[in-house]
C-alpha cells in the first residue's frame, strides 16, 4: 500500500516537473508501435508506404490515446488550475484600477486581522506552553469576607501537599523584587520565588543548566538562582558559560544554576527565579495570604474529585485552625482560566471587531467583482459559447478571486509586519509584563499562515456570489440573444443587498467603538481620590536587606532622602510609600474596630494597608476627612493610634461589615 502511494507520488511529481520529457517519451513510444506494425506488414509483402498507412489507420487517434495517457498521470486538475491562474493574472493586469482597489481593500482587512491574530495567538493560545495544560490547576483560598483575596497561604499549601492525593505535584510561588548589582551598574529586577518542583510541575526545563533540585536542603538552595533569557542576553551578553558563576542580588551572592528558555513568562515576564522553601513554623501559618499555588492533576483524577478532596481538607483546616482558617475555602480552577480570564474577553472582542472589518471588506470586494462581472458579460458569454461548462466557469472565476485574495494577503502580511511591533509597543513595559505572552508577540510564521488561510476563506466568501451568478446558464443564453442589459436589475438587487449588509456591519462596529470609547472616558473620569495629574514624579528604590537591616538604618536613609529631595527647587512636598497607589501589588491587613466586639482573625475585615512617610497625603492630594497627617515626630506606636481615614477604603470595608 505504502509502496503504491510512494510510486504514485513519484510518478505524479515526474509528470508535473518533467512534463516535456514525458510528452516526448509518449510520442516516441506510440511512434515506435506504429512503425513496428508497419514493419510487420512490410515483411508480409506490403509496400512501405501502404504498410505505414495501414498501421496508422489501425492504431486510431494518436491524440486521443495521448490524452487518455495524460489523464492517467493524475495531474490534469493541477494543470487546469495553473492555466486558470495564468489567465486570471493576465485579466487582472488588464484592469489595474480594479485590481489595485480590491488588493488594497483586502490588504487593509487582512492586515488588521493578522495583527490582532498575532496578539490573540501570543496571549491566548501560546502564553502557557506547558505540557498537558488542561491538567494544570490554580489552587486558591477564598473567603466571603475578602472578595479580592485569591492567594493561598504557606499553611494551606503544606497541608495540600501533605494530605491530598488528587495532585501528581503541587508547587507554590510568590513575587520577589530586588537589586542586581554589578561592577558597572545596579538595576532593579523582578523575580519569582518558586518551590523547587515549580518547573517540573509545569513540565518545563531550563534552556541551559538545571532546575532547583527537589531533594536539596533549604540551606543548599538558599543561594541558587535561575535567570530569564532576556536578563541573560541583556546583562550577560548571552554568555554560554554563565552557569556556575556568581551574581549579587540585593547584597547577597547567588550562584546561577540555569537559564530559562526565551518566551517563558509564567506567571509574568520576569528576570529571575529564586528557590522558595518553608521553615517549620510555616505549617501553622494559615493567615499570610501571599502564596500562589498550582497543581498538576494525578492521572485519571477528575475536576469533581479534586474539589471533593479540597472541600474535605478545607473543613479539616477550619476545625484545626479556627482563628485563622474559619470561613476560608480551598478552590481550584484550570490554570489557563485563572491566568487568562481578565484578558480573554478583551482579545476576543478585538478579534471579533477585526473579523467584522474583514466581512465588510468581503462585501465590498464582492460588490466590485459583481460590477466587473457585469462589464465582462461578453467575455463570459464567449467562454460559454466555446463550451466552457458552468462548473468550469465558476471555477475560473473563483481562481481569479483566490489570486486577488492572495495578492491582498501579501499586502496584509506586509502591513502586519509593520503594525505588530507597533501594537507590542502600545502597552508600556511596566504594564505589559502582566499581560501573559505579550513579550512573544511578533509577526511569525503562524500569523503568516493565518493571513493566507483568511485570504483563501474570504476568497470563497466574496468570490462565491459573483462566480455563481456569472456562470448561470441563462445568463449566457440571454446574452447571446439580446446583447446585454437583461440581467441588470437582478444584479442591481444583489449589489444593493450587499451594500445593506455592509452598512449594517459598519453600524455594529461603529456603535461598539463608540461604547468602548465611552467606557474609556468613564474609566478616566473615575475619582481615584488622588490629585496627582502631571505634578507628581515617582521613583522606586529597593534597599538591600543585609546592608539596611532594621528600621533605623533604612529610616535614616529615607529621612535624609526626603529632606534632600525636598530641598530641590520647585519641589513642594516629598514622601515615601511601600507601594504606589493604583499599582498592581497590594498588601491586605485585617483589623478590628475599637469599641466593637473583636472578630476572630479569619473573619476580620481587611483593608489595603500602606506604610507611608509624613507628607504622603499632601503629596498625592488626598484629602483628610478628619484629624491630621503623620508628622516626623510620630513614632511607630503613635502611628498605629493615629486616627485618619482614607475615605473610599474605610467606607467600603466598614460599610460592608456593619
Amino acid at each position: 500500500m505504502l509502496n503504491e502511494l510512494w510510486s504514485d507520488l513519484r510518478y505524479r511529481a515526474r509528470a508535473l516537473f518533467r512534463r516535456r520529457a514525458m510528452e516526448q517519451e509518449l510520442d516516441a513510444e506510440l511512434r515506435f508501435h506504429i512503425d513496428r506494425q508497419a514493419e510487420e506488414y512490410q515483411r508480409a509483402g506490403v509496400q512501405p508506404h501502404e504498410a505505414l498507412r495501414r498501421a496508422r489507420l489501425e492504431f486510431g487517434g494518436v491524440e486521443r490515446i495521448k490524452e487518455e495517457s495524460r489523464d492517467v498521470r493524475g495531474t490534469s486538475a493541477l494543470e487546469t488550475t495553473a492555466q486558470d491562474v495564468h489567465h486570471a493574472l493576465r485579466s487582472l493586469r488588464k484592469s489595474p484600477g480594479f485590481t489595485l482597489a480590491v488588493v488594497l481593500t483586502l490588504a487593509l482587512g487582512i492586515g488588521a486581522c493578522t495583527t490582532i491574530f498575532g496578539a490573540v495567538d501570543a496571549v491566548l493560545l501560546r502564553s502557557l506552553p506547558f505540557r498537558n495544560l488542561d491538567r494544570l490547576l490554580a489552587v486558591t483560598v477564598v473567603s466571603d469576607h475578602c472578595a479580592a483575596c485569591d492567594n493561598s497561604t504557606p499553611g494551606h499549601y503544606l497541608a495540600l501537599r501533605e494530605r491530598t492525593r488528587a495532585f501528581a505535584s503541587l508547587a507554590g510561588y510568590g513575587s520577589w523584587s530586588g537589586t542586581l548589582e554589578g561592577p558597572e551598574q545596579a538595576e532593579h529586577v523582578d523575580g519569582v520565588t518558586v518551590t523547587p518542583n515549580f518547573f517540573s510541575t509545569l513540565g518545563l526545563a531550563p534552556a541551559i543548566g538545571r532546575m532547583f533540585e527537589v531533594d536539596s536542603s533549604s540551606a543548599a538552595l538558599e543561594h541558587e538562582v535561575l535567570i530569564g533569557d532576556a536578563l541573560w542576553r541583556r546583562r550577560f551578553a548571552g554568555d554560554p558559560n554563565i552557569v556556575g558563576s556568581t551574581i549579587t542580588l540585593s547584597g547577597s551572592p547567588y550562584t546561577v544554576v540555569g537559564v530559562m528558555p526565551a518566551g517563558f513568562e509564567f506567571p509574568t515576564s520576569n528576570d529571575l527565579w529564586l528557590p522558595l522553601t518553608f521553615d517549620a513554623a510555616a505549617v501553622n501559618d494559615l493567615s499570610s495570604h501571599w502564596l500562589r499555588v498550582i497543581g498538576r492533576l494525578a492521572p485519571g483524577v477528575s475536576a469533581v474529585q479534586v474539589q471533593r478532596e479540597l472541600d474535605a481538607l478545607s473543613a479539616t483546616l477550619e476545625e484545626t485552625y479556627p482563628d485563622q482558617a474559619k470561613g476560608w475555602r480551598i478552590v481550584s480552577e484550570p490554570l489557563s482560566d485563572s491566568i487568562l480570564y481578565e484578558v480573554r474577553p478583551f482579545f476576543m472582542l478585538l478579534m471579533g471587531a477585526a473579523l467584522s472589518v474583514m466581512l465588510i471588506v468581503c462585501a465590498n470586494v464582492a460588490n466590485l467583482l459583481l460590477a466587473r462581472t457585469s462589464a465582462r458579460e461578453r467575455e463570459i458569454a464567449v467562454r460559454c459559447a466555446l463550451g466552457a461548462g458552468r462548473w468550469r466557469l465558476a471555477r475560473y472565476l473563483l481562481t481569479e478571486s483566490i489570486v486577488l485574495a492572495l495578492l491582498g494577503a501579501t499586502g496584509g502580511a506586509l502591513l502586519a509586519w509593520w503594525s505588530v511591533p507597533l501594537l507590542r509597543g502600545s502597552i508600556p513595559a511596566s504594564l505589559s509584563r502582566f499581560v501573559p505572552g505579550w513579550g512573544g508577540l511578533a509577526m511569525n510564521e503562524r500569523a503568516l499562515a493565518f493571513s493566507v488561510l483568511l485570504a483563501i476563506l474570504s476568497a470563497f466568501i466574496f468570490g462565491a456570489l459573483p462566480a455563481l451568478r456569472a456562470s448561470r446558464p441563462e445568463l449566457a443564453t440571454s446574452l447571446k440573444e439580446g446583447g446585454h442589459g437583461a440581467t441588470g436589475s437582478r444584479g442591481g438587487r444583489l449589489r444593493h443587498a450587499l451594500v445593506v449588509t455592509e452598512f449594517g456591519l459598519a453600524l455594529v462596529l461603529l456603535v461598539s467603538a463608540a461604547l468602548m470609547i465611552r467606557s474609556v472616558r468613564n474609566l478616566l473620569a473615575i475619582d481615584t481620590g488622588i490629585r496627582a495629574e502631571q505634578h507628581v514624579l515617582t521613583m522606586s528604590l529597593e534597599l538591600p536587606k543585609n546592608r539596611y537591616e532594621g528600621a533605623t538604618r533604612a529610616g535614616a536613609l529615607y529621612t535624609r532622602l526626603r529632606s534632600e529631595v525636598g530641598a530641590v527647587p520647585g519641589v513642594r512636598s516629598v514622601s515615601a510609600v511601600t507601594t504606589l497607589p493604583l499599582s498592581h501589588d497590594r498588601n491586605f491587613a485585617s483589623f478590628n474596630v475599637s469599641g466593637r466586639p473583636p472578630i476572630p482573625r479569619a473573619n476580620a475585615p481587611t483593608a489595603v494597608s500602606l506604610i507611608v512617610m509624613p507628607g504622603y497625603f499632601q503629596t498625592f492630594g488626598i484629602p483628610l476627612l478628619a484629624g491630621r497627617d503623620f508628622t516626623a515626630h510620630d513614632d511607630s506606636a503613635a502611628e498605629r493610634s493615629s486616627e485618619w481615614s482614607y475615605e473610599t477604603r474605610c467606607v467600603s470595608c466598614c460599610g460592608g461589615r456593619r
Partner: protein
Amino acid sequence: MQGDYLTNPSLDLPQGTVDLLILKALSLQPMHGWAIAQRIHQVSRTALEIPQGSLYPALHRLERRGWIRAEWGISENNRKAKFYQLTRTGRKQLVAESEDWARLTAAVALVLDMG
C-alpha cells in the same frame, strides 16, 4: 487489426482484464507495448485483442501504481523502445488477480452449467 474483426472476430474484454493480461504477459520477460499486444493476440490464438486505445493508458496506469517499471532499451528490430517489466509489487498483484480471476470464472461456469 480492428479492421479485421469481421473476418476474424475477437472477444470483447471485460473491464479490468486488460491489466491482468498485461501483467501476465510481462511475467515472462520485459517487453515493449507492441510486443505485449502481439503476445496476447498470439497466445490467445488470436481470440483476444487489446484495443489499441486502452493498451497505453493501461500501461501508464500500472506504471503509476508501481506494478510495472519502464526502461528504454533496444528492440528486436534495433530501435529504441520503451520496455516494461514487472516489479515485486506487480508480481504479487499478478498472483492475487489470477486467483481472483480463476475463482470468478469457475463460479460463472458453475452457474452456467446448472441447467
